[in-house]
Structures are given as C-alpha cells and as structure tokens.
C-alpha cells in the first residue's frame, strides 16, 4: 500500500495503474521566445552550422513486423477454458485464473454490499489455507518454490494470479489446484480477516484518490454493483465461515472460468499437468447466474459538485465525468482515441495545458474505465486549493474543445500511434499477455480482439472522435467530485455548480459551519 522509500525516486510523471494501461498525445505549444536563454553550454565547434542536420527529427525506417503470441486453447469437460502461450524469453511462468461473476444478480444496495463483502472475502480467503495446508504452510510452500500467489475480486470477476520460476511451474500447479478446488476457509483465518478488513476500510479512506474514485463511482453507477467500491463494516461483520464457503461453492466453478498459462514451458506437457490438476474441478449444482436484471443507472439532470470533506488536506483531488460505454461497445475505440488526444499521457492536451502551461497540477489525466456491463469516462487532477475551481473550468473547456473542433490529422495519427505502441509494449511481459487475453474472455471482447486491435484503432476517424467526445466526454451534466478541505473549497466551487458537502463515507454533512451553507 505504501512504498517505504521516501528518498528514492521522484518520477517526472506518475506511473498509473500500469505503465501501459492508460496514457497519450499531441499539441504544439508556442515556445516562449521572449524569455532570456541562459545556461546553454557551448555549441559544438565548427564554422558554419555543422549541426544543421539536428534541426529536424530524424526520419524513421519502416516499423519492423510485430507478431502476436501464439495461443493454444482447449476446453475441459467441466467447462473450464485453458489457454497456453509458450514464451521462452524469460525463465518464469505466469498463470491467471478468472472466474465470473464476482457478484451475483442485483438487489438493493444493502444486498449488493453484502454480496460484495462475500465475493471479496471468498476471493481473498482461498489462499489462506487449502487442501491439507494451513495458510502459513501454503504461503511458505509457494514462496519456497520461487513463486508468488494472490487472489482478489474486481467489478467483473475473481482472479487468482500466480508467477513462478520455470522449473517449478508444475509443482505450483498442484498448489493452484488445491486453492481452486479445496479452499479450507479455516475458522481462525475468517475471524482474523473480518477484524482486519474493518480496519483496512479505515486505511483505504485515508487516501484521497480512493475517496475520489469511490464517490465518483457511487454517483455515476448508482445502485449497480459498480457503484460500490468497498463493503461496509456491517456487511463484513455479518460474514461467517459457512456463508463464505457456500458463496464460493455456488459462485466460483469451472464453467465460464478461464485459466491462462504463459511462459517458459512445453505446452503439451503443461496441458497434461493442467488436466491432471483442474479437470476434476466440479461445477456446482446451483450456480448463480451471471445475468443481471435491467440495469438502472442514475441520470444526471444538472452539473453538480460533490465535495468530500477531508479536513487539513494540502491539496484537492478532483474528477469530472459521466457514464460512458462498456468495453465491448462499438463506441469504445473512438472514445479511447478521443481520450488519448485529450488526457492520456504527457503529450496530451490536458497535460500540456493544465500542467505545462498553467502549472496547476503535477498529475493531470483523463481515463476510460470500460467494464463488462458499463463504463465511465473522467478527467482528473490534484491541485492546490486556490486554483482548484480554475483547473476544473479549464478541464471542462478542454472537454468542449474536443467536441466542438474536429481534431487535425497529425494529432489524430499521433494518438493512434501511441495507443498501438502501448498495445505492443504491453505484450512484452507474460503478465501483459495474460491480462490482455483475460480481458477478451471476461469482458466479452470477441475472439479476434488481439488480432484486430491495431486495425480498429487505425480505423477511427476524426468525425468519430468528435462524436465520441460529444456523447461521452462533453456532458452538460457531468459529475464533479472534489476531495479536499471543504472550508477552503466550498465557496469557489459554488461558481461551478450546486455543491453537496459530504463526509468521507459519502454521507451529507450537517450544514452547521458557514462554509457549508449554500
């Protein structure tokens, strides 16, 4: 959670989620030619501009061919899909197992929250003791093999992730089998998990970025499960061993699940091992269905500011955005390119304007969060309190510009190059390959997704970018979430829209202090 290395590293730009996940591009800034130039070193010797060739960037050769990883796919009789990707570049093996759904069909918020608490507990506790091994024995054995094992639940599925030095991959498969087929959910581990989870909730809410994301999702997704970022203390308190084990048995089985094995192994041999370990995994009799009832998303009718009060904040975190598209939508690629132009990466409009021109922020970005059933778009930054309202207005102006003015061909091509470059770079690692393949299966992306990705990006037109910006970025009624010291922010923010002041759990604050009054 916190990297204890305060003096080690100050990056120029924060690596978000993953280096290759988001970022992108283009805008020429006028160079401030009136300013005095000092500190330039002596130029290279010579008489008449020997370095004239340096004036322009070098021309590049044609790009060298890019090959996608070869995937071998099989399906076991129990419904489990297993994919093998031999990759001998590094002597390790990476395995991901994805199991939908993480959360069962809809109900009220309280019911959904308790389902979420169960899903999270079940996913996290399967590695705390399995088969004949205690939690400690399992951890020790995994680590002794030169391995790493983790499990978690996200909005769309539960995932077990595993890495191991190549020569111990088959032995790790045995442990993986125990975790998936025979989780023990020991009473003592469940009790400890419950006590600690109530307290890690408190730790999560220390972090302004968590608060901003939680509040934003709550507004945009409403009573859909995507609107819930964390369980409540009451829903954690209500957990017990029997409920968790039952939830696991009825929700997580081989049907619809996907195991992806990437790395330095022989695929035929690995398939024999995978079959030995996972073919006996039994599908539950009464598995919860993955079909949710009609989705019910809130519809905003005004531009409103949700101000989460975090007293003595040194800065304000804000997010501006709306409901957008699910990952399998045809609009996803145009929106991705639009987002790349606007706010993905250090060459993007938001970065060059709000950071490099205005100096309002260190980190400024926009992001497309496209999940299986729905998604969001938002722009965000962390700014000093005095300029927060100005930075928000500047960002909204950039949203408008993208919808109002058609993007030029160079900027458009640059954005596409960036996205396709990130795609290629993300396939440099086993984890990147496994993650991309997992998304195909868990987010309904279609079998030709990897093959078609680059050409789908290339096919996006300037008109489509503009349309995507108008539909999903340039909302008249965006949700604006600000996390910071309300006593210093409320007045300025009222110039942007009506302000709701909330506590860190999202509950309305009593209108007692003068700054809280509308």
């Amino acid at each position, binding site marked *: 959670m916190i990297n*204890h290395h305060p003096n080690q*590293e100050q990056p120029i730009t924060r690596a978000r989620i993953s280096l290759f996940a988001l970022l992108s591009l283009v805008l020429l800034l006028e160079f401030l030619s009136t300013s005095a130039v000092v500190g330039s070193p002596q130029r290279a010797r010579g008489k008449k501009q020997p370095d004239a060739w340096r004036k322009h960037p070098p021309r590049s050769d044609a790009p060298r061919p890019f090959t996608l990883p070869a995937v071998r796919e099989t399906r076991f009789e129990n419904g489990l899909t297993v994919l093998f990707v031999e990759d001998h570049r590094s002597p390790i093996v990476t395995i991901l197992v994805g199991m939908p759904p993480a959360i069962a069909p809809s109900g009220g918020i309280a019911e959904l929250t308790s389902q979420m608490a169960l899903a999270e507990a079940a996913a996290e506790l399967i590695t705390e003791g399995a088969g004949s091994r205690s939690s400690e024995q399992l951890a020790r054995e995994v680590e002794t093999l030169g391995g790493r094992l983790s499990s978690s639940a996200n909005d769309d599925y539960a995932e077990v992730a595993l890495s191991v030095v190549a020569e111990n991959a088959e032995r790790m498969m045995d442990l993986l089998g125990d975790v998936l087929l025979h989780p023990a959910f020991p009473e003592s581990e469940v009790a400890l998990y419950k006590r600690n989870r109530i307290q890690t909730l408190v730790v999560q809410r220390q972090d302004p970025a968590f608060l901003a994301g939680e509040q934003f999702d709550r507004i945009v997704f409403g009573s859909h499960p995507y609107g819930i970022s964390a369980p409540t203390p009451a829903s954690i308190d209500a957990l017990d061993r029997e409920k968790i084990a039952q939830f696991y048995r009825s929700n997580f089985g081989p049907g619809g699940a996907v195991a992806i094995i990437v790395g330095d192994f022989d695929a035929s041999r690995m398939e024999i091992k995978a079959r030995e370990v996972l073919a006996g995994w039994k599908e539950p009799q009464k598995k919860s269905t993955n079909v949710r009832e009609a989705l019910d998303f809130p519809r905003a009718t005004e531009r409103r500011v949700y101000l989460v009060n975090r007293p003595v904040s040194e800065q304000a975190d804000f997010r501006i955005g709306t409901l957008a598209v699910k990952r399998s939508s045809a609009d996803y690629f145009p929106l991705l390119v639009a987002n790349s132009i606007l706010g993905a990466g250090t060459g993007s409009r938001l970065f060059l304007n709000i950071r490099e021109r205005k100096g309002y922020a260190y980190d400024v970005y926009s992001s497309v969060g496209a999940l299986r059933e729905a998604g969001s778009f938002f722009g965000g930054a962390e700014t000093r309190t005095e300029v927060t309202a100005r930075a928000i207005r500047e960002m909204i102006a950039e949203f408008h510009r993208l919808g109002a003015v058609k993007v030029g061909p160079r900027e458009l091509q640059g954005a596409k190059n960036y996205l396709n470059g990130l795609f290629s770079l993300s396939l440099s690692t086993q984890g990147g390959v496994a993650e991309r393949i997992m998304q195909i299966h868990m987010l309904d992306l279609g079998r030709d997704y990897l093959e078609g990705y680059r050409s789908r990006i290339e096919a996006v037109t300037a008109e489509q970018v503009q349309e995507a910006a108008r539909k999903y970025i340039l909302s008249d009624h965006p949700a604006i979430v600000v996390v910071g010291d309300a006593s210093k922010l409320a007045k300025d923010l009222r110039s942007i829209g009506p302000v709701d002041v909330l506590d860190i759990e999202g509950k309305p604050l009593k209108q007692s202090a003068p700054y809280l009054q509308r």
Partner: protein
Amino acid sequence: MKRLLSTVSFIAVIVAALQPATRAQTFKVPFSRFTLENGLRVVLSEDHSAPVVAVAVYYDVGSRNEVKGRTGFAHLFEHMMFQGSENVRKAAHFRYIESNGGVLNAATHSDFTNFYEFLPSNQLALALWLESDRMRSLKITAPNLKNQRDAVKEEKRLSYDNQAYWPALLKMDEMVFSNWANAHSTIGSMSDLDAATVTDVGSFFATYYAPNNAVLVIAGDINTSEAEALVRKYFGSIPRHKPPPQVDVSEPFEVAARTAAIDDTHAQMPAVSLAWKVPARHSPDFYAIAMLKSILCDGQSARLYQKLVKERAVSLEVQGTLEARRGPGQVAVFTIHKPDTRSEDVQAIVDAEIERIKAEGVTADELIKVKNQYRLDRFLAGSEGENSSLQTALGRALALAEFTMFDGDPSLINAEMDRFLAVTAEQVRDAARRYLVPANKAVLSIRAVSGQTPGAPQSKTP
C-alpha cells in the same frame, strides 16, 4: 497420505533449488560496451524478440549533490530537462515519443538521475536525437522554471504532504543519517524550491549534465554496429565538461537519532517505522543484509508478517525495504498497526524476532526460500513492476545502466544473482548481530490524529 505426499514434494523442491544450472540461472543478457572520446560510457544490448527498443540515459547526480538551501533542486532540474533545447521545443519531447508509439519517464534518486524512452525499434534515432539535443543545448528560461516549480510543488503535495505516513517517513531519513547529503529529502522543501533561480539551473547543468558524467544504454531490437554509429553521430561532438566535484557521503556507524514520535494529520491508523543504517550496495555485507530483510519481511510466510499480522494480530500490514544506495543506505520495517495496540508492544515483537535470529540464526529452508524469491523477482520487480523487470528491453537497459554507472561493470546484470545465492545462514546471522543493534536503530512512532487539531495532546503512544 496427503501429508506424506506434500513432504515428498517439499524435499524435491529443495533438490531442484540446489541444482547448479536451472533455467533461471542460465538466462543471460548479451551486451557490448565502448566509451566515446568525450567520456560518455555506452552499453548496447541486442535482442530481436520484440520490435521495440529502450534508451536509458543516467547522470551521476542526485539529491545528495545538492547544497544547503536548495533541497529538491536535482529533481526540479530533472523536470527542466523536458522544457526544451536548441532544436526541441518546450514539452515537445513528450509529443515526439508518444506520437511515435513510445513511453518515457525520468526519476531523481538520492544518488542518480535517469531518463528513458521505450518505443518501436524503428524510432531509435528519434530518441537519440532528443537525448543528445538536451545534453548539448538545454534551454532554460524563467517562465519555464516557474511553471515547473509549480508542478513540482503539486507533486510534493500529491506524493507526500497530502498522504498518510509519508511526511513521517521523510523524517526517518533525518533520524538514520547524520550526513546532510544523505539525510535531506529528494523532494525538498517548499521554501528551497521557491529559492531556486535560473542561474542555479544553468550552473547545475554545466556541472553535472556532461557526457563524461553520464551512461547511455540501448537495449532491444537493434543492430549493434548501426546503433554504435548512431551514438557517435548524435553524442560524439558534445564537449566534455570539467569533472564534477565529489560528494562526501560518509557516515558514522550509529544512527543520528534513536527514537521520535510524530503526529500524522492524515492517518486514522497508527504506524511504526524502524530503520537501521547499512553499508553501500555491493559491499560484502550487503547481500547478507538483503537476505535478512527478506526473511523478516518479504512474502506472507516472512517472520514478521507471520508474527505481527497473523500470530499476534497487532498489525494490518508489514513492509520491509532495503535502500541500496551507493553510499550508506538503510534497511527498514514499516507496519500499520491497530489502534488498541501500543507502539512499544509492536516494537517489542519486532525486536524479539530479531534477537531470535541473532541467537539461533536462520534456517536452511528459509534461505532457500528467499533465494528462490530473488530468482523470481528479477523478472517481476522493476521500479515500475514487471514492465521494467528483466522481462523487457526497458528493464534490461535500466539494469545495465545502473551496473555500469555504479559498479563500472555491466556484466553484473548476469553475475550479481550468484552473489545473492552464495550467502550462507551464518552470514545472515552475523549481519543481524553486526547491524541490527540498538546504537544503529531509529524508531519513529506515527500517531494517527486525522480529524484532530495537530499537536493536540495524545494518549497511549509515547
């Protein structure tokens, strides 16, 4: 029956781990090296497994080279490297790299500053053009300095001032190190950032950003002789500067301050940080200290995780770090603990475990375990995770540059693992006895006072 099987497989594991040439140990990164007349040290590593290339430029300067009154300056300067040069406009660096399908970043450390580009291999010349232009002709203007100072101040707020625990952890460095060069923070103070002038930027550039004070590494889909010709073309004519002054980073054995407590206005859960000063990376004891730290802290079977989080259930998480500086560094344990447990009680559990290692040593099984973890980590644990580990051309470029600049020996990218694997249980025990001693231990209790007035009286923790 099950138990018997698992015992058998456990023995098999040990045998496998002791085999002399496992696949993970035969992994080799190829490279060649040369030095330009201007002193630029260059390493090339050709590998055609993907059509990508990484370019890394390391400068031998960090926050330890700063002068009093200018903390944070090395990092502010790093930002200025993106503000334009003779042929590259302000911030155009970002656009050139990203619009050609690449990523980039830079980072300032206590003891070095690095820049990298990771992009399609047909764009190698572009990265060399950009890196050479700013090395030879950085443009420094007052408006750009003001703009980047504002950005860096927001970075300080974002990464430190507005986060739980971080302001306290910066204080740890001042408790561990006596020498100001080591003790002050890389992010610096707001008033020092305000004091920085355009003249400071110019003289820092002239002093430290010289080819003879830098290492250039290119790794990935290249032709070695073509890449060498490009390097000579772009960097060969940049003049050598006067060698920069050496910085004294020497330290007494003991820490500067042994105990302190601090109120954290963003924390709702208390925490404690314990740190011990340790010798420089690659010194003889360093590898044993690394093993010791991993046995204590790394992974869910680590001793302190088992004690603090599981057995005694006083902590929510435990994190160990070994700061591998070129001069004295530190090994630290940081743990967020429960409000109903006193800081001293958490510390006592940590101390008891350390005393047990001093008395009884570590087991052969533990040592095998952490060695296997190091073999895995080479391919997973770069500064940006897997993306900058040895799996990628970027990770290989960064590692080669570090070994070249710090050790003068890029071959350590292949050989260093043997030094970790050679550590014995006795060496780990001796390292604990030598370094994890009271005179060399700094302890900071972090009190959670979120929602309270700073400095208000507190109970429970000292």
